[in-house]
């Protein structure tokens, strides 16, 4: 403090400048301004002193850029903003003090010294305040400072850094984008619905549903089918009453007009009093999964039905086999072989409902196993005719009975015997008929059985009814003949 001569001249002229203040006031007092274009403090015009005094007392970061070079005079708040650049910035030329934004400040000086103001909100600049570039956002306000000549002699700048707020905003925006991406990835549709569920406020259909930009009360008519509305409304009411997440799978009318299924989830948003203010929901397209489930249900039902039918058939076979048995040993053998035939017949039917087997396939499966090595002992000839699953099953069992009988008592019980199976379609007065014949030859002499067993009852009565025609067994001297006469339509659903 003794550097200042307090004894000479006017009190005010010799008082230390600037008076009081913080770190910057002291630095300004100590600085050798004669090295700059402003000159020593003693020569400063009052206007410069006044503005310097003012900015030193301001809590806002303020910098004064004096003269054409923009010599920098600033306050404590600005020194904090400047980071590592302070204290070298003090008294430096603004274009050199901040070389990384020299162009920006060049414009500031030109505009300011021309008497104009500049104002930037959240201006982004890259500054090197700590030895590395960092993105900085600022509110910048520049205005000219008029000196005693009435001309702009400097520019005063108010610098309010908004980096923190902008970073928070950017983080929020990024977070929103991530959230939106997540919703997009996880579902097809997002929507907002009123607290009572009556009004759809907004719906982003994403191509699945048509978009809804304006709140609509009649949204159910747009998206739901009349017969589903009551059930959907019930689910919504239930969720409102329990103040719980709404989870519902329902049919929708899709944007392209087709019928689809969506799985929809909505969570209630609450006010301070705990009342629902609205629902925020997301829905995804589950049409494919739904139809797959539907198909699966049909298949399971059909499978269940077939299993039950097979069990009933086994029950029937067991009952018939043991009831008419001559001995338990014989009945066990017959039963096993009939179950095997039933299992084989089922192999013909694997595949979907309604897909049947061919007549030739059924006949070959029944006969070939016995004469794989000698095809001359069974002669199969006829056009291919498609059979419904049920008819194929019945015919398989009938074939098994005939084959078994031939092996035991008929043509195949001797080495030279043969069986010929032939069939064809014939046009008759009763419409187109299938005529099929099983003819044994070369076997032992035939004598009609004393009583009809399960096999012949099954063929003459069961197969006849099954094919809606006539089936007759003739015990001719040369061998057994079984003749089928049935309408060709027996194998068709029509």
């Amino acid at each position, binding site marked *: 403090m003794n550097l200042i001569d307090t004894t000479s001249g006017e009190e005010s002229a010799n008082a230390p400048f600037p008076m009081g203040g913080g770190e910057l006031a002291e630095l300004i007092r100590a600085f050798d301004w004669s090295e700059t274009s402003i000159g020593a403090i003693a020569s400063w015009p009052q206007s410069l002193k006044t503005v310097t005094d003012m900015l030193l007392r301001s809590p806002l970061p303020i910098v004064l850029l004096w003269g054409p070079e923009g010599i920098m005079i600033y306050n404590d708040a600005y020194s904090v903003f400047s980071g590592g650049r302070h204290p070298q910035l003090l008294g430096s030329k603004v274009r050199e003090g901040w070389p990384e934004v020299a162009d920006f400040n060049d414009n500031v000086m030109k505009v300011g010294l021309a008497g104009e103001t500049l104002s930037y909100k959240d201006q982004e600049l890259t500054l090197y305040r700590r030895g590395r570039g960092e993105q900085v956002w600022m509110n910048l306000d520049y205005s000219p400072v008029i000196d005693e000549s009435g001309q702009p002699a400097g520019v005063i700048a108010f610098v309010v850094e908004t980096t923190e707020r902008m970073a928070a905003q950017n983080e929020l925006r990024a977070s929103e984008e991530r959230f939106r991406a997540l919703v997009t990835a996880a579902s097809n549709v997002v929507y907002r619905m009123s607290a009572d569920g009556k009004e759809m406020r907004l719906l982003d259909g994403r191509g699945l549903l048509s978009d809804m930009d304006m709140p609509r009360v009649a949204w159910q008519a747009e998206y739901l089918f009349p017969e589903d509305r009551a059930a959907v409304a019930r689910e919504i009411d239930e969720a409102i009453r329990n103040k719980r997440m709404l989870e519902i799978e329902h049919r929708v009318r899709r944007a392209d007009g087709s019928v689809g299924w969506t799985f929809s989830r909505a969570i209630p948003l609450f006010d301070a009093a705990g009342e629902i203010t609205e629902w925020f929901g997301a829905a995804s397209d589950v049409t494919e999964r739904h139809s797959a489930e539907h198909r699966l249900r049909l298949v399971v039902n059909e499978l269940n039905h077939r299993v*039950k*039918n097979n069990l*009933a*058939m086994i029950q029937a076979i067991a009952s018939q086999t043991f009831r008419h048995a001559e001995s338990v040993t014989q009945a066990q053998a017959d039963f096993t072989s009939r179950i095997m035939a039933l299992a084989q017949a089922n192999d013909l039917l694997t595949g979907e409902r309604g897909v049947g087997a061919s007549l030739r396939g059924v006949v070959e499966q029944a006969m070939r196993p016995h004469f794989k090595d000698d095809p001359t002992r069974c002669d199969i000839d006829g056009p291919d005719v498609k059979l419904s699953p049920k008819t194929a099953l*019945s015919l398989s069992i009938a074939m098994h009975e005939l084959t078994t009988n031939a092996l035991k008592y008929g043509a195949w019980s001797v080495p030279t015997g043969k069986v010929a199976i032939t069939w064809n379609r014939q046009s008759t007065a009763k419409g187109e008929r299938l005529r099929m014949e099983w003819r044994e030859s070369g076997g032992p002499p035939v004598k009609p059985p004393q009583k009809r067993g399960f096999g012949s009852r099954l063929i003459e*009565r*069961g197969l006849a*009814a099954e094919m*809606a025609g006539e089936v007759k067994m003739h015990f001719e001297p040369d061998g057994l003949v079984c003749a089928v006469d049935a309408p060709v339509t027996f194998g068709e659903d029509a």
Partner: protein
Amino acid sequence: MTIALLIEEMLIDLGHKVTALAMRLPQGLDLARDSEIDFAILDVNLDGRMSFPIADVLSARGVPFIFATGYGAAGVDAAYGHHIVMKKPFEMRDLADAINIAAAA
């Protein structure tokens, strides 16, 4: 058809006379319309076609009947829900009970 034969045999054992067997809808309809019967047992699925038209004919004639199906009660249309549905496979005792109840109704 094997099952039909089994049921036929059960019916004979129970002292009934079996008029005819039909495995398809048209034959079944003919029988329901024209034959002299006082009772019928209907499989629901006649080779891919539902037997309900036969049920309608029988109802119109006042002939009592029951259903017998591997699908169980779920396989019968709600409109016919008041008729007895036998789930295959079943025992002769059950068949006898079902016939007695349906015939008395």
